[in-house]
């Protein structure tokens, strides 16, 4: 597979958009974060790892749910450049 330098740069720029909501957003002090992805990076990046990398508050427990591109996902799903990742505190709708 041939990947141009421009494509590589686009992917790198794409990175991962991380979003927080409600109480979690307020605890962390931010709502949206761009996490650059290193195209030559060794290990796969997962939501669980990003939680630690971003030093999000408290332990990453069962109460926090993960959504990738607007769909619920497992916390160990490998992330792709361009993904929108969201950490969702306990839902209380309806």
């Amino acid at each position, binding site marked *: 597979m041939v990947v141009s330098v421009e494509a590589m740069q686009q992917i790198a720029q794409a990175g991962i958009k991380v979003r927080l*909501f*409600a*109480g979690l957003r307020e605890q962390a002090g931010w709502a949206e974060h761009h996490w650059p992805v290193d195209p030559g990076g060794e290990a796969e990046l997962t939501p669980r790892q990003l939680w630690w990398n971003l030093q999000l508050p408290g332990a990453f427990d069962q109460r926090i749910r993960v*959504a990738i591109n*607007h769909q619920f996902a497992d916390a160990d799903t490998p992330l792709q450049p361009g993904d929108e990742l969201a950490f969702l*505190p306990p*839902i*209380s*709708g*309806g």
Partner: protein
Amino acid sequence: MQLRIALHSTAFEPLDLLRRWQEEHTPQGHSASAAEAHFIGRVRGVAADGGDLEALELEHYPGMTEQQLEQLAQACCIRHNVTSCLVLHRIGRVLPGEAIVLVAIGADRRGPAQRCCQELLEALKHDAPFWKREWRTDGSSTWLSGNTPL
């Protein structure tokens, strides 16, 4: 199967929207559903700690919330084989007494209509990204970390 889902950022009157929904799927004498089940949830005047509630703030995840509601409703309606479904949910600042959610199901029989209405309400309460923050009369606020018991 007719599905209508909407988020409202201002107060809505459940019965007005139920009427409009009924009229939509009974055009030109087309017969109305033999069975219709509705649920309306409203904001209580009391906060979780028992104090007076000034308002409830409803945050959602634009894009994902609508998509989840659609998926949950579609799956539930197919599972119960119902013919029409209306889901309305408030976002933003909601005052005590105002409607926060409306679920209405039209079907050919009462069992599927009622079960679908009930299941869809539980599904959206647990799996549609909404977050409630209680604003108390003293100006303080708390994010809720779950739903009221069933």
